[in-house]
């Protein structure tokens, strides 16, 4: 072990991500070398490396990271030296694919309590300004940036999809997707009686849709239908969303249902979102009826 440690290059400026692993195994020569595509103008760095997994299959691991400069800090000389310390303990074999440290995809604000007389919270419109009537608001679902590009043109499409934090953003910022939110927050209106819905020919399709019903539990108390819709529509067209609301308090009772048009979308949604953290609670997403197979 000691011999391996000293073989590690001691050059000052090497970042641990670019260090070659010394003890990766005997069959290293069979694997193509690691390729690092350096940070481009958006700060995206792609690292492609190969390794053998448990069954001996050759596995290609592509890690896309966004390198962002948070700001300048005055660092003491000792602190600079500590930056170059070798890893020890459980961190010795840390590779690029380690998911230990991640930047949150949600923007977290220091939420001020809204008392009379205090200023409003800074709105998260990201320098958009007032939206002119008739102008098109380009919203990208992947990175959440507005006015820049549509989802299919997103430069960050490989990165984790950030959930739209509806509960934290003021609703004015989402003018483009306000339509489904128009339905009442007051009383529950069954879909057959809602304005604008199809009347004829939907009975059969709706029945089939009920088999694609997904139950979502452990919702936070201010989750509503538009939030669930926004969260689940990325998996496919959603025919209906329902959130159980306590009529007395107006708060969500913690569960809801989402009906997908296609079964496969429902299946993917379950796999992806079960255990997903949403508004500080861990969601439970499962089939609403006993597994229809």
């Amino acid at each position, binding site marked *: 072990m000691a011999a391996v440690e000293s073989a590690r290059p001691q050059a000052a400026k090497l970042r*641990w991500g670019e260090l070659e692993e010394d003890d990766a195994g005997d069959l290293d020569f069979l694997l193509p070398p690691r390729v690092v595509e350096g940070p481009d103008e958006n700060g995206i760095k792609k690292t492609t490396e190969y390794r053998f997994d448990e069954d001996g299959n050759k596995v290609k691991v592509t890690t896309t990271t966004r390198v962002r400069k*948070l*700001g300048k*800090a005055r*660092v*003491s000389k*000792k*602190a600079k030296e*500590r*930056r170059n*310390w070798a*890893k*020890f*303990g*459980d*961190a*010795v074999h*840390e590779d690029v694919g380690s*998911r*230990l*440290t*991640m*930047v*949150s995809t*949600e*923007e*977290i*604000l*220091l*939420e*001020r*309590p809204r008392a009379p007389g205090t*200023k409003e919270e*800074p709105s998260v419109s990201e320098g958009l300004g007032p939206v002119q009537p008739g102008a098109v608001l380009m919203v990208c679902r992947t990175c959440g940036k507005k006015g820049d590009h549509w989802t299919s043109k997103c430069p960050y499409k490989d990165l984790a999809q950030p959930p739209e934090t509806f509960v934290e953003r003021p609703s004015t910022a989402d003018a483009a997707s306000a339509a489904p939110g128009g339905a009442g927050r007051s009383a529950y209106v069954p879909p057959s009686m809602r304005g604008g819905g199809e009347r004829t020919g939907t009975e059969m399709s709706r029945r089939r849709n009920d088999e694609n019903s997904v139950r979502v539990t452990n919702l936070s*108390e201010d989750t509503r239908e538009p939030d669930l819709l926004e969260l689940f529509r990325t998996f496919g067209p959603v025919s209906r969303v329902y959130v159980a609301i306590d009529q007395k308090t107006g*708060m969500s009772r*913690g569960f809801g249902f989402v009906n997908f048009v296609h079964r496969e979308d429902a299946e993917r949604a379950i796999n992806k979102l079960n255990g997903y*953290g949403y508004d*500080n*609670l*861990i969601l439970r997403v499962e089939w609403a009826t006993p597994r229809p197979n």
Partner: protein
Amino acid sequence: MRPILMKGHERPLTFLKYNREGDLLLSCAKDHTPTVWFADDGQRLGTYRGHNGAVWCCDVSHDSTRLVTGSADQSVKLWDVQTGTQLYSFNFNSPARSVDFSVGDKLVIITTDPFMGNPSTIQVKRIAEDPEDQTSDSVLTIKGPQGRINRAVWGPLNKTIISAGEDSIIRIWDSETGRLLKESDKESGHQKTISSLCMFTDKSHFLTGSADKSAKLWDTRSLTLLKTYQMDRPVNAVAISPLLDHVVIGGGQEAVNVTMTDRRAGKFEAKFYHKILQDEIGGVKGHFGPINALAFNPDGRSFSSGGEDGYVRLHHFDPDYFSIRM
């Protein structure tokens, strides 16, 4: 801000500590391995392997070379920060709860829990320059308080020891003789167990958090109660900003109690209060479980929180944090 999430621990976090320069963050958890991270980007530097029980507390020396950790496995271990090697282990007859280096790093306070008939103790041990010379002798042992001592720290200039614990009374002891100098007032003080204590950088005042849903600010010399900050849940962790007049308080329910209380009582945020006006500034949400540890970076520009969910969240403040007006 975009907090950096660090999931290195598999069990709940117990304590967080920055080194003096603020470039390293040490985290202790119930999973037996204290971990050190870089405080700017959250990359893990290493772990200290050796403990066999939950690690309750840690402290790092002034020059960031020595780390001391107190654990439920009845030992307090001294480590070399850079390499992770264990230099010495103090063994006790009961779980060790709180550790604190003195100014100058020559002495360390260690508290042990009441266990199997042994009362809780506060012990002061000498730390030798050279680990080879290290012995287990106690310079001072104080036995006195009823119940568990959750935190004991040095007072200004190492003249006093301040302890707080389950009996909700803060005590100030003389560090040379071990005599009890002051006790906090029962009426105005905390009514339930004090879970956490944080000293201000110049040690002129300190903040305690208690399960009675409040945090209180005390003057160190006279032990007068200066301020009280009201929370709506038991307080597990407190921290004072070294830069602005802010304090941050974190709490939540123990996992045991969650099923017995209203579901809506489980929101987990770190609440910021104005230190002098006692008003709530705001909250930073994000943890999936109660917050057990809070620490401010010594430069006051970032802070980190550790939760029952095993995550450490490192927050670098946005520029508008520094211009908050009340």
